[in-house]
């Protein structure tokens, strides 16, 4: 594989919960080690509450990690001043309605990161840069002085993308960037993200719960369940040959927009609910819903191991 850009070692994010109903520790991200190569798109899928967004945020130190290490270009950036790296590592948020300040104009939203990192010499240069960014994401200069409420969801997401790209990052966490958008608009944004990646040589961590979207955009895909990575493989390989029973169920549950008579695979429907992250099952966390669970699954905490070259799974049965 080409040169590595981002690497995590045993990254952990624990939240202490204490209220009238319950107390304890939620292990939102429970020891994730992976690396992302330059120019690669790593997809991260999993159900809500599995810790995929928390992982993305921890990676950018928007929440300080409980334990583990983050490396950027081989350099440990877990501790100390993160500001210089924040310019290199950006994020696009899920909800284009909540992630833009309603009282700022589009120009100010896109210009704010430029102000923070002092990336212009004079006002004229700032303005030119903002216009260039807006054009890049398919908006025009008329839009600059408007406010977020004047835009549709897809256009707002474009503004969010322009803001993330303003500081010329090399790594962008895309946290469910299309799940709040209509289907016809989703494709526009996905295509734009792909185009930007090519043009600006970006590396993506693409977090989503929509497996078809992730398959489309990613080179490799990681599957998370209750804070742990259960499978990691090249995108095509993962969908063709899922090894972990959870991945198998997940892929089989995707509704496919095709005539029923053309679908040959049998749908596998998982029993039960996702266990509470406050009180996860012992051993393999998936065993309570796993159709293949054996007694030993309750005892051994499974570790990610290489099943085939480049294809990792944490299931102890395979």
């Amino acid at each position, binding site marked *: 594989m080409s040169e590595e850009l981002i690497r995590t070692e045993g990254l952990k994010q624990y939240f202490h919960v204490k209220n009238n109903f319950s107390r304890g520790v939620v292990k939102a991200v429970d020891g994730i080690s992976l690396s992302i190569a330059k120019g690669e798109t790593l997809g991260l899928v999993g159900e809500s509450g599995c810790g995929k967004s928390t992982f993305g945020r921890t990676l950018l130190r928007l929440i300080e990690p409980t334990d583990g290490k983050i490396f950027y270009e081989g350099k440990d950036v877990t501790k100390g001043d993160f500001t210089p790296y924040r310019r290199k590592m950006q994020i696009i948020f899920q909800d284009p309605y909540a992630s833009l300040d309603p009282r700022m104009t589009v120009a100010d939203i896109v210009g704010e990161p430029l102000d923070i990192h002092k990336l212009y010499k004079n006002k004229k240069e700032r303005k030119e840069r903002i216009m260039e960014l807006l054009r890049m994401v398919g908006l025009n200069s008329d839009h600059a002085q408007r406010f977020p409420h004047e835009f549709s969801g897809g256009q707002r997401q474009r503004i969010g993308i322009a803001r993330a790209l303003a500081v010329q990052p090399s790594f962008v966490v895309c946290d469910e960037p299309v799940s709040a958008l209509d289907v016809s608009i989703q494709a526009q944004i996905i295509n734009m993200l792909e185009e930007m990646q090519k043009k600006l040589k970006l590396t993506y961590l693409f977090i989503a719960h929509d497996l078809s979207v992730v398959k489309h955009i990613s080179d490799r895909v990681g599957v998370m369940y209750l804070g742990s990575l259960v499978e990691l493989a090249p995108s095509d390989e993962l969908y063709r040959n899922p090894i972990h029973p959870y991945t198998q169920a997940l892929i089989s549950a995707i509704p496919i*927009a*095709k005539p029923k008579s053309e679908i040959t695979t049998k*749908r596998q429907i998982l029993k039960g609910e996702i266990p509470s992250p406050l009180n996860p099952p012992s051993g393999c966390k998936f065993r309570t819903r796993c159709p293949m669970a054996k007694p030993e699954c309750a005892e051994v905490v499974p570790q990610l191991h290489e099943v085939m070259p480049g294809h990792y799974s944490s299931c102890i049965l395979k």
Partner: protein
Amino acid sequence: MENLLEIKHLKVSFFTPAGEVKAVNDISYTLGKGEILGVVGESGSGKSVTASTVMGLVESPGRIVGGSVIFDGKDVTKMSKQEIRSLRGREIGMIFQDPMTSLNPVYTIGAQIKEGLKLYYGLKGKEADKKAIELLKLVSINEPERRLKQYPHEFSGGMRQRVMIAMALAGNPKMLIADEPTTALDVTIQAQILEIIKELQKKINMSVMLITHDLGIVADKADKVVVMYGGRIVESAPCEEIFRNPAHPYTIGLLNSIPKLDSSDPLVPIEGTPIDLLNPPKGCPFAQRCQKCMKVCLSHMPPYTKISENHESACWLHDPRAKAAAGKEAVK
């Protein structure tokens, strides 16, 4: 097949300070007994407003401006408030998109299910408990006796949606309206919920109106499909047919813009943004974004053209008159 629901030329508008929003603009479709109808469309296409109209839930500034909704032989749009109330729950059940906010957080699940049972059948005490437990079993909730005494916050999203289904079925309705029932849920839970709806539909021969934006769900569960855009139905067909042989450019565009698992071809998005219903275009609502837009599309609303048995499309491309003129008038 006998029709349970017939919507004829329905028009619903919202009269806002900024002007009239034609949320539903002259739509007609039917739903047969024991049939699952998939209603597909983007946000703002009018799919939920149609459902609200069937339930008599359109409120000011919204108003039914024309057309009729015939449910089981009676016109819902002409009913009094009292008559519509007796329809809700008993004849038509409804489940909503967001299971997190559709239940009352300060009442137990049992109390909320039993409220309906008391209203519909006058059931009280032990009898009501028994029936409520039965309903929870029907939607595969484990330990229903214990669950009845719990509050909504003790349930996960998928379980709340199942409780919603149980409540919707309490009155033994002839029709279930499921408005984006799984949008807020994860894929594995979504598969469970859809399976429950399908099973129940078979078991009690209920009609289902399944409103969704996910074409995959429709392909899997529906018998027939209507595709809505900008308050109009642009295409309607049996489910197999619409995926095998889509006719309207919008339907084709939708199918092309979703990523497929078995190919990595680039996505073909539908360019542009959804129409502004306050100032709808004069002709076809999709014309501005359509790759095959012709001159006539910008000025005249396309009529429905029959593509094949039960398959209709509202597009000038399929109109015999436009076919004759094709080639000369292409705008784009």
